[in-house]
């Protein structure tokens, strides 16, 4: 027998206290699916920075918000627009009207009124709120002026003449406004509640009010988040699940796969490294297009070598998008980068890219070299120039940058220097124009081609390469101001043609993702816009 001395006893006491603070040993085994109580469990890739819908910008926040809030309209599992808080609506050239349903309720039981939308939208454009998504309201009367601090927030073109009628006035045509309002920035906020939280709205579960299918019941920051069915939600009869829990917060794909294997979570994303492992487990592997288009952006600022068209063409001609998706990325579901527009976008009648087919990309190193020689002659260089490729610090970014570096060395004898930076430093360098090439991607905010189409307009602040082309700007204006679907498709075609002919960017790929999902979970929706994945209307079937 071991007898403990005074020190030993103290240590034992300390350990005892420690054990006591931890909840009992493996209390209830938290399986991925609880059929009896209708609970599913998932992993969140990171802690939601905040859940104030007027300020939310990232995918995790909008994913959580998408389960607990409801906008005027929403998208169903087939990607069709269906009524949300609004029962019906009407989009005109100069404005829109939304008629709100009678039984829409906040989680405190009070009705959701048009005034809640007016407050929320005004709040979002208010420069004092400093919402990064204020730009998404542009097109509503005075939105731009207000966010510049040049007009009163009450002058925003939105009003509530009746509690259940919302009137919107446009400063330019917004043909896609009904799709746009499904976005998180357009969720309602209840003014009295919002003001009572005194700047803490969205910081904790009790600092929020919900009008969606679920409510957040528990939010332990950085550790877990739990949602429970909202008893006041108007469509509660079509909500099967009682709870959605996120007991894990990690971005590590290996950890997520291990949790899935361990029957702890219902869904895990796969990458080229974990893919084989999933195959060995005999799981059904699903694939979906996550909506983002990826490309290499050139710096078009004055004095940059990449201003030269021949140089850009040389770089583009040496790149083979098929080799890139098949061998460098190496996971199924990625589509070749043919255009700025991803393939799922809808045109007037068919898919957009069927109506304006982009040219098949050409890979020709000999031709590329001749363009490089022309570029060198124009630039007065005797040797191939050195270029800086700005990139992030994730393993994927490293791999792609290393591939491109060697590719251009082999094809053109160009030296590419990799500038690897952490997220915010990369953004700062992109904004400052401190790069020649940067690997970038864009995900849609709303399901209209314009979310991609206006990206390279000279006035768009997200145009980090500062590409400026009056012809392209004119096409963007056409697409913005027109309500005729055919005319808009023509404008989108014009934008695509100019970008590709001018090699303003090199499209690299259209991202697809693969994942595994618990076989009992049905009706999980993966989509290109937030919330993704959407499990609000999922149900369980015993295998």
């Amino acid at each position, binding site marked *: 027998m071991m007898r403990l001395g005074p020190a030993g006893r103290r240590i034992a006491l300390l350990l005892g206290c420690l054990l006591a603070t931890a909840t009992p040993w493996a209390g209830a085994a938290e399986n991925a699916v609880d059929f009896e109580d209708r609970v599913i469990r998932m992993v969140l890739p990171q802690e939601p920075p905040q859940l104030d819908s007027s300020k939310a910008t990232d995918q995790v926040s909008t994913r959580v918000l998408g389960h607990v809030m409801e906008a005027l309209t929403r998208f169903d599992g087939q990607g069709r627009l269906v009524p949300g808080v609004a029962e019906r609506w009407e989009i005109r050239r100069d404005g829109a009207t939304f008629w709100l349903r009678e039984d829409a309720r906040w989680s405190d039981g009070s009705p959701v009124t048009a005034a809640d939308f007016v407050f929320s939208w005004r709040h979002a454009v208010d420069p004092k709120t400093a919402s990064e998504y204020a730009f998404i309201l542009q097109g509503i009367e005075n939105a731009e002026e207000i966010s510049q601090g040049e007009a009163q927030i009450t002058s925003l073109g939105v009003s509530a003449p009746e509690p259940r009628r919302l009137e919107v006035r446009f400063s330019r045509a917004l043909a896609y406004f009904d799709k746009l309002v499904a976005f998180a920035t357009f969720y309602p906020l209840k003014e009295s509640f919002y003001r009572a939280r005194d700047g803490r709205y969205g910081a904790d579960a009790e600092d929020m009010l919900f009008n969606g299918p679920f409510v957040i019941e528990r939010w332990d920051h950085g550790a877990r988040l739990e949602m429970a069915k909202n008893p006041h939600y108007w469509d509660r009869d079509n909500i099967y699940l009682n709870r959605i829990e996120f007991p894990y917060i990690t971005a590590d*794909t*290996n950890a997520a796969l291990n949790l899935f294997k361990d029957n702890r979570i219902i869904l895990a994303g796969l*990458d*080229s*490294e*974990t*893919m*084989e*492992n999933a*195959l060995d487990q*005999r*799981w*059904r*592997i*699903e*694939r979906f297009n996550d909506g983002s288009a990826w490309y290499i952006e050139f710096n078009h600022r004055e004095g940059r070598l990449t201003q030269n068209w021949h140089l850009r063409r040389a770089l583009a001609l040496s790149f083979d998008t*098929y*080799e890139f*998706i*098949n*061998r*460098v990325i*190496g*996971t*199924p*579901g990625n589509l070749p980068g043919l255009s700025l527009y991803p393939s799922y976008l809808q045109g007037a009648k068919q898919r957009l890219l069927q109506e304006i087919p982009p040219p*098949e990309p050409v890979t020709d190193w000999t031709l590329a070299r001749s363009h490089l020689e022309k570029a060198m002659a124009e630039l007065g260089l005797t040797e191939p120039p050195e270029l*800086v*490729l*700005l990139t992030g*610090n*994730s*393993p994927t970014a*490293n*791999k792609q*940058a*290393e*591939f491109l*570096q*060697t590719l251009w060395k*082999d094809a053109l004898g160009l030296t590419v*220097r*990799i*500038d*690897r*930076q*952490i997220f915010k*430093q990369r953004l700062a360098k992109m904004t400052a124009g401190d*790069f020649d090439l940067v690997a970038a991607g864009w995900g849609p905010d709303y399901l209209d081609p314009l979310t991609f189409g206006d990206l390279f307009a000279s006035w768009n602040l997200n145009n980090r390469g500062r590409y400026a082309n009056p012809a392209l700007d004119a096409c963007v204006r056409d697409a913005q101001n027109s309500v005729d679907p055919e005319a808009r498709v023509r404008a989108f075609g014009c934008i695509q043609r100019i970008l590709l002919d001018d090699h303003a960017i090199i499209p690299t790929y259209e991202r697809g993702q*693969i994942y595994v999902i618990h*076989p009992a979970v049905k009706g999980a929706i993966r989509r290109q816009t937030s919330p993704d994945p959407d499990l609000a209307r999922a149900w369980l079937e015993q295998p």
Partner: protein
Amino acid sequence: MSAYTPRPEDFAPLGAQDAAPVLVRPSLSYWADARARLLRNPRAVGSLALLALLGLFTTVGPLFWTVDPSTQNLDRISEPPNLSAEALLIDRGQRWPGVEAEGWPSAPDPAWLASPTRTALDAPEGLSVVGTPHTWSVRLRWSPVENAAGYQIYRNRYRPTALNELGLPLGDRWSGAEVSYEDALALEPGVYWYSVTATDGLRESPHFQTLRVEVERALPLNAARKAGLLAPGDGEPGQRLSLPAHPLGTDYLGRDMLSRLMHGARTSLFIGLLAPLLYVLFGTAYGAAAGFFGGRADAVLMRLADFVVALPFLLFMILFRVASGVEAGESGITAILVAMVLLLWPATARLVRGQILQIREEGYVQAARLLGAPQRYLIFRHMIPNTLGVILVTLTFAIPTAIFTEAFLSFIGMGVAPPTPSWGSMCFEGLKSMLNSPHELFFPALMISLTVLAFNLLGDGLRDALDARMRARE
């Protein structure tokens, strides 16, 4: 213990002696003795041999193994260790346009689609391979299915027997008339099982057709010529070519692991050796100054050291690494080096100061001082030789810490920037693919472990060898 029985001789008186007894063992200097004892320690000798091998590996190795560590080979991604490989030469002609079933409707009859009693679609018949399947392309075709709006193509490594075993969802066809698919997704030599299902646009049919395909390694002619495996104009499609060996396999871009390990060793050992050397030297000078001058200077100097010691090491390491703002094309090695030196010197400084203070009070130093020895003599004759042992041991144990720190920084994405390889960053990259290609993690981790092990054992041996108490005990 055996008892000693005294004999009468023991009590006989001693005669007069001519000379003092001759010393049979020559006097050993401190260092000669230490060296002798170090060399008697088998583990220390082993570690020295290991370090010598590592040194050869990094310096002489690249002279013999001349593969360029940055040459990518997308045909041979994440290959396990091998000594030879063979490839079929191919001509990468035009992209395959695919096969279209002529006159076949692209979408099902709407009336049929609307009927609630419609049955699941049949499995596509006649699944077959077009041309030779190889690692650059496997071309499949099948017969169209009635009422199909499209097809899904899957691939697996084993024969699927159920729907959940179809494997990777490679792609889809959004027309009932498009009845072919070209797969080029990360193909490796070996056997694949392809499956095709039909979909009516709303639901995917549970019936599938499977085909076994043996894929051969291939190499496009122009790639072979570019890599110098063929003379220009040489070779013909259909010929076989033997490829260079990768004794330790390849990484995620098909680069040679052995060569990358050799070059990575330069980074890791550069940081691992130079950083400790610099901060131990600085710490020694600093500590010696403080200890020697004493008094107010000592107080001020040691206060500053206390401040630096209080900085949480890893947190500041990360902060400094980020703050240094590594520019394009730089590896960031200097930044890591500087950060380590800035943060780690005080431990040595404290240790050396303590030693100096102690030695200063020793009788032999006092005696030397009383005899009028100059400062310089005191420092070089007594202080330095007597602290050198401690410093040497500190240095040896500091090397593993530096190597680990570099690896840790790589682990959180703040290590040396690509394309510079380092063992730490190779480990980190290998970690992700640990299950599929363990060699990508195993070899760099082994290199780190061997190096650290060698320095730890050497440190142990040095400590024992330099310990004056051990000397007295023998």
